[in-house]
């Protein structure tokens, strides 16, 4: 790929400041579009670009916008999901911290397209520096009348509020995010009604991911056809892939949709650290099913990865070399899901807890081979039985790690956790035991009372 698009300002010093961003062309597209194009033309361009929701679901963005009621009397809200929390994903942090004006310009265009006068950005609470840069950028945009009443001297009003979360993975789920933004626990809502009909404060709402919205200025500047041609069929544009784990060059790699996983790891991320060999890859955040070293010729786009039995998800690519203990990886994945279940639906609240207990037993060297089938049974009991897809996401690592590495699990169990070489971090029974008392079953985490 020739030139970076979304990441073009990531290494420019202080690009989060308006003067620097404007020197790099920020807001030019929004100024032109808001004064010369009709809102429906913006939506049509986004539709034609094959832009798909880059937060994980991959739903066509233009189509989502068209779900809004046509002659609604209620206000329309635009909500930006900046609650990045999917383990292995860090791309949105780069946009928020290093190039927030790119996002704000996208918000102006999206708000114009959907007829929204008020937008909220929900940013995860732990992102303090990204929040400071983003808020500073919003303040500067207000001062220059790029936000607020009558932006760019037009009759268009766009208000933007940056809202900080408070530490709950589930709030990345869009309806949980709405409840959280309304000041409540992050409980996902039953759908339908979809947020486009009944969303924030009961009004029609469009929720888009940070990176998705950051694509919009580029689509309108360079054309929908240009954007569509960058990716693979039906999957427009480039994507910010977060590559981590055992690679020489971990980081955000902007690559066209449809780049093969092999090229991503060996060409762009510098190959496996220390010249060791590849064992497995999780291609789309912790929720995505694991791929073995023999499955990496898959193209990294929504449709190809679905066909390969996994998903692109948040494009968090976690690379594991030959020294990786898959049992340990399942232990930490199961711990994560048990920790972060919001507790609203029984199959998820109980299932993630049971699964974690069993995986912990195995990891400690106290497991039995029949535990593996019990885990698969629990996973089946969680999948597709809850309000949101969290339970499904919790089931997939269990199913795929055991499904693809069953022999390793059985060997681990038979040898009571002593047979496999784990040079990265040797197994220590005491240290491996987590403080279960700090795990509150509602899904909330807190420090114990002293």
């Amino acid at each position, binding site marked *: 790929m020739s030139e970076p698009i979304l990441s073009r300002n990531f290494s420019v010093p202080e690009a989060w400041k308006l003067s620097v961003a404007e020197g790099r062309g920020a807001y030019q597209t929004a100024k032109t579009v808001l004064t010369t194009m009709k809102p429906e033309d913006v939506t049509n361009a986004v539709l034609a670009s094959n832009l798909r929701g880059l937060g994980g679901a991959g739903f066509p963005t233009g189509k989502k916008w068209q779900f809004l009621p046509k002659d609604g009397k209620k206000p329309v809200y635009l909500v930006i999901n900046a609650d990045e929390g999917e383990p292995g994903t860090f791309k949105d942090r780069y946009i928020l911290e290093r190039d927030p004006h790119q996002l704000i310009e996208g918000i102006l265009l999206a708000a114009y397209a959907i007829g929204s006068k008020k937008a909220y950005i929900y940013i995860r609470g732990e992102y303090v520096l990204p929040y400071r840069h983003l808020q500073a950028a919003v303040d500067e945009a207000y001062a220059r009348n790029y936000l607020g009443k009558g932006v760019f001297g037009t009759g268009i009003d766009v208000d933007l509020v940056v809202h900080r979360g408070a530490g709950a993975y589930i709030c990345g789920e869009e309806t949980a995010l709405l409840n959280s933004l309304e000041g409540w626990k992050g409980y996902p809502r039953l759908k339908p009604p979809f947020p486009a009909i009944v969303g924030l404060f009961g009004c029609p709402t469009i929720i888009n991911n940070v990176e998705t919205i950051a694509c919009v200025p580029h689509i309108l500047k360079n054309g929908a056809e240009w954007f569509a041609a960058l990716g693979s069929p039906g999957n427009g544009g480039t994507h910010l892939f977060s590559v981590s*784990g055992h690679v020489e060059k971990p980081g955000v790699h902007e690559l066209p949709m449809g780049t093969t996983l092999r090229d991503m790891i060996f060409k762009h991320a510098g190959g496996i650290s220390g010249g060791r060999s590849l064992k497995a890859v999780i291609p789309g955040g912790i929720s995505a099913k694991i791929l073995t070293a023999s499955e990496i010729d898959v193209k990294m786009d929504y449709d190809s990865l679905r066909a390969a039995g996994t998903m692109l998800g948040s494009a968090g690519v976690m690379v594991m070399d030959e020294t990786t203990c898959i049992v340990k990886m399942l232990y930490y994945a199961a711990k994560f899901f048990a920790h972060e279940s919001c507790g609203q639906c029984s199959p998820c609240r109980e299932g993630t807890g049971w699964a974690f207990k069993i995986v912990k037993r195995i990891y400690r060297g106290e497991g039995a081979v029949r535990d593996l089938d019990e885990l698969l049974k629990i996973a089946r009991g969680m999948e597709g039985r809850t309000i949101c897809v969290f339970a499904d996401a919790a089931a997939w690592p269990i199913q795929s790690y055991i499904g693809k590495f069953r022999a390793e699990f059985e060997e681990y169990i038979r040898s009571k956790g002593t047979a496999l070489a784990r040079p990265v971090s040797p197994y220590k029974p005491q240290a491996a035991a987590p403080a279960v008392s700090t795990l509150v079953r509602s899904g909330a985490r807190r420090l114990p009372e002293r």
Partner: protein
Amino acid sequence: MTIKTADLKAALASLDAEAAKIVAKYDEKRAATLTLLHLGQDKIGHVTPEVEEWVARWTDQPVVRIRAVVTFYSMYHQAPVGRHHIRFCMGTPCVLRGCEKLLDHVKTKLGIENGQTTPDGRFSLEEAECLCACEGAPMMQAGDDYHLDLDDKKIDSILEKLK
């Protein structure tokens, strides 16, 4: 060390002007709940019953509803924490790059376990889920700041600087 209720109320009252501005930004008062809890906690150090009552008053909600919110989110502390609260990332990419050994190092150095505070009130430790800075794994957050590409020495020098 206990702070008197009257002092807490005075401290919170000093935030009223800012609270009014925050509430005005939202379309409905209750939407300011999380933001006001952050504000109150930053001032007091943790979320006390007085903070909950203050947020309840500003957002026009029963205190029990604020309490439910406080217990749901990991960032609200219901008991005092250290001056420097450490979130040590235990996400998959950090585990892949050896965070377990480093966590042991931190625990040994500070003499505390997950969820505890040092007796001098300087540090508290929380084993965190993925903080989404995996390019710099293993990593941790000390107070507001992210520290990436950790090793024993780097951890020592970071902790040393936090008084």
